[in-house]
């Protein structure tokens, strides 16, 4: 049942990251609070995608890469014009 152990560790890791992100919000890190929160959120998303959603295989990764590319264009072109 190593699969179960992997899921459990992933779950505990997600809860630890949640505690870290809430805890960090009580500490003033200057401008880095937002960056840290978003980095932790991205780490959680990657954990969920890899462990829970089994993001493997060419086609699913292609779909995720395409979505990511369009989001980069969306955010990039909006922010570059400001």
């Amino acid at each position, binding site marked *: 049942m190593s699969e*179960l152990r992997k899921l459990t560790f*992933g*779950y505990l890791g997600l809860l630890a990251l949640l505690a870290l992100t*809430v805890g960090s*919000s009580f500490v003033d890190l200057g401008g880095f609070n937002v960056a840290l929160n978003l980095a932790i959120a991205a780490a959680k*998303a990657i954990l969920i995608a890899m462990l829970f959603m089994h993001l493997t295989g060419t086609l699913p990764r292609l*779909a995720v890469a395409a979505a990511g590319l369009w989001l980069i264009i969306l*955010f990039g072109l909006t922010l570059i014009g*400001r």
Partner: protein
Amino acid sequence: MSGTESVAFDTPRRERRADNFAMWVFIGSEAMLFGAIFLVFLVAHIDFGPAFAAASKHLSLPLGTFNTAVLITSSFTMASAHRLALHRRWRATIWALAATTALGACFLVVKGIEYGKEISEGLAPLLGLPFRYAGPDPVHAEFFFGLYFTMTSLHALHLIGGIVVIAGMIALWRTASPANRLRRVVAVGLYWHFVDIIWVFMFPVLYLINR
């Protein structure tokens, strides 16, 4: 019979792979929807940072944190359902799915309590409700709460959709072949985890900005 639901596929494995790809494409299109709203929030946050930070302090951090933990737990039970379905432990799979919907419902109840609190404090600029805000820059604080209700209610609608689909899946459980049970658990699981990921980003963006 090969055990596929559609005649287009030779084997259940091929059908599962097609399902999987289609779900990821669907998730990509959902990411566009939420991405656009996150972008609106980001631009507004850049322009009205102090007003947004002050308004964000009026949200309940304990309830938001609790709800994040609830949703992460529901993703864990959903992943367990997938694992159990792979081992064809159907009764346990149903229990894991039921636990997932119960946790999803718990999230919605807590969200409802939060909404009730915000409406009673006059912080809900929707449906013609009065907006009473004592802090600085009430105009942009109202914008923050407008975005907050838009984002969280859109997320809640997605969660309700997930709960309805899982409930329907459990209702049709007896009539489904083992291959189809597994396919459905995998597909709805991908959707559920995606809705969880959206919340994982919404929580720090809305609740933790410059606390």
